[in-house]
């Protein structure tokens, strides 16, 4: 019986609306679920999405709830919340859980294709993607094979690679459809 979490920072929708009473619904349930939408949901934070983001990590949910509270710091009087969600196998009707890493893996281009999802920069390039405080790694020019030359440019970053990194950062699992109230076990107060 896997357990998932979702943080609700002070001043956000799921802070005001108690998911234990209403369940979790996506922002735009009617919209078609495609790989592009999945990538945009994770990497670009697109709001109009058929997915609800969950995480396997309580720590990640806690961080979202604590550090992204909109209306001041969470306090004992006005705490942020972390929802604990337990979803049994098989999933409730109308709900599907998607592991974005596995989902993306299915559609990554073949190694023989000209266009790759992989970067062509230095090994330190990923540091710049993972942490924006190391953004200088993103701008480091790539090296060309001898005799060198060519136009200087930074490494390529595909949306697929970016999405993989973001999904792993947040231990993210996407729920497609509505998460019923019966799956929401509890709501922890955090501050």
């Amino acid at each position, binding site marked *: 019986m896997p*357990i998932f*979490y979702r943080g609700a*920072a002070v*001043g*956000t929708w799921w802070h005001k609306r108690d998911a234990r009473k209403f369940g979790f619904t996506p922002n735009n349930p009617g919209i078609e679920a495609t790989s592009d939408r999945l990538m945009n949901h994770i*990497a*670009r*934070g697109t*709001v109009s999405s058929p997915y609800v983001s969950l995480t396997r990590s*309580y720590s990640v949910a*806690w*961080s*979202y709830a*604590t*550090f*992204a*509270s*909109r*209306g001041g*710091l*969470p306090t004992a009087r006005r705490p942020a919340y*972390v929802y*604990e969600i337990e979803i049994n196998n098989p999933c409730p009707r109308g709900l599907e859980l998607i592991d974005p890493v596995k989902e993306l893996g299915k559609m990554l281009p073949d190694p023989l294709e000209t266009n790759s999802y992989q970067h062509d920069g230095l090994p330190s390039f990923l540091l710049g993607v*993972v*942490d*924006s*405080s190391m*953004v200088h790694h993103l701008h480091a020019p790539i090296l060309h094979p001898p005799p060198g030359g060519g136009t200087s440019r930074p490494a390529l970053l595909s949306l697929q690679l970016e999405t993989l990194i*973001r999904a792993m*950062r947040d231990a993210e699992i996407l729920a497609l459809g509505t998460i019923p109230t019966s799956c929401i*076990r*509890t709501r*922890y*107060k*955090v*501050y």
Partner: protein
Amino acid sequence: MSTNISERLAIALPGEIEGGAGIEFLFVEVSKVFPSMPFAVVHYEENGKRAPLGLRLDLDKRVFLDHFNDKAKEEVLSRAAPEICAFVGPSRQGKDRGHNLFISAYTLPESLVRAGAPHTGVQRIEIPVGVSEKKANAASMSLPWDSLDTNLVKAESNKKKKLSTKNRARKPNVATAIPMPRAKRQRQKVQSKY
């Protein structure tokens, strides 16, 4: 005076980040205790009036997690997000000093409690500002959480022992050498408590 785990550092934005479409960015809040946390909250004025709720900003993704319905305002946010991230960048490079607070700052998930782990409840340790790293570490060492870690390490090492063949010569193993008499004492203390 005490340190709160969710304490924030406010960085003024006027004159640094250009607004537009009626939006003027006032200041951005980042975690003071965990500078590497990738979340910030940007406070702003809308048509000259301070908005009661700030906008969440994911510093790694370099996007706002909150949005406007107004297209022009959305464009301002899209443009400003990477600029604010770059501006805030240097303040994120400080050393996280909240790991000691972090241990005790939240309730253990119920799943762990069900598995027999000790429950810290809503216990909350606030370490006064200026307490040295050593003292802070010592404060956190007495927490049941540490004993939990030790127990888990020991359980893991016992599992490994069972799996290994009986006749094989035993080599000293760093992982199995972790439980010390001190850890045993701690465990007994915890068992008597819970």
